[in-house]
């Protein structure tokens, strides 16, 4: 019975709030007063900030992500161009002077430790640049 009453009160208040004319007078009913107060309180949340920087931070995050992808594509293009040039050079050398190619090959094989060291140093510099230098630049 109580459930029915509550259901009816809720329905009538809802109708009133929607501007529908309600024939029943519920003004003096205690539960109705409580429901009215509740409906008013439910329609607002004081803790929701009106001027939050959400839009700005979302756009900033999207821009950062776009820049990251652009940088990735740029690096990819540079790598592709470098490989292409390297391959062309190799072909040209192989066609014109196979001896020179052998000399370069032997030099690289005999100094493989030095070559490997140079490559590791290069990669290390790139990683340090990405994770330390560029990160610090963001905060400065």
């Amino acid at each position, binding site marked *: 019975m109580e459930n029915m009453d*509550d259901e009816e009160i809720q329905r009538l208040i809802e109708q009133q709030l929607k501007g529908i004319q309600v024939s029943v007078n519920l003004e003096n009913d205690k539960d109705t007063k*409580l429901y009215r107060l509740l409906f008013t309180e439910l329609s607002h949340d004081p803790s929701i900030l009106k001027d939050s920087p959400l*839009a700005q931070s979302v756009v900033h995050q999207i821009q950062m992500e776009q820049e990251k992808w652009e940088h990735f594509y740029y690096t990819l293009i540079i790598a592709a161009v470098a490989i292409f040039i390297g391959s062309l050079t190799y072909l040209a050398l192989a066609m014109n002077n196979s001896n020179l190619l052998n000399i370069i090959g032997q030099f690289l094989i005999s100094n493989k430790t030095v070559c490997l060291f140079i490559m590791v140093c290069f990669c290390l510099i790139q990683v340090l640049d990405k994770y330390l230098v560029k990160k610090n630049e963001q905060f400065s």
Partner: protein
Amino acid sequence: MQNEEEIISRVLNGDLNSFKLLVKQYERLVTCMVKRVIQHQEDEEDTCQEVFIKVYKNLSSFKFQSKLSTWIAQIAYSTALNHVRKFSGKKNLTSDIAEFENFHQITDNPESILLKKNTSEFIQNEIKKLPLQYRTVLTLYHLNELSYHEIEEITGMPEGTVKSYLFRARKLLKDKLKNYFK
């Protein structure tokens, strides 16, 4: 207010200022939803950002079959729900309701009631204690002023369930208010 279709097409053409407008337009909808579902202040902002980034990335798949607000609210609801599942480890969130309805009568502690500064704060605190589904329907219906049908679309709950949760949530809160004023 600019036409939604126009704003979307600008965003799809890479205009971030139009997206900023879109975020501002639906910020309240998303914030209310995330805030009420997650209830963890530190994660709220990150989740709201996550929602809008998902909106940005998937905007091209929006085909105007529903209102943009409904579509955004759907993303906000599922993102917030995933966050809750991830951190609470609960797969079946409906079990919350049964647990709550069994114990809500004894959780009323007079000292905590006395601590509440005013009715508004009291109600907001009581809302926080409600099960997730109740909080969700209350937020969507009262704060975001969405229809039962839109709530059904967003949450996937049948319209009858939405109405029932809404009724029970309001009744529980009314009972709490009654005790508060005693």
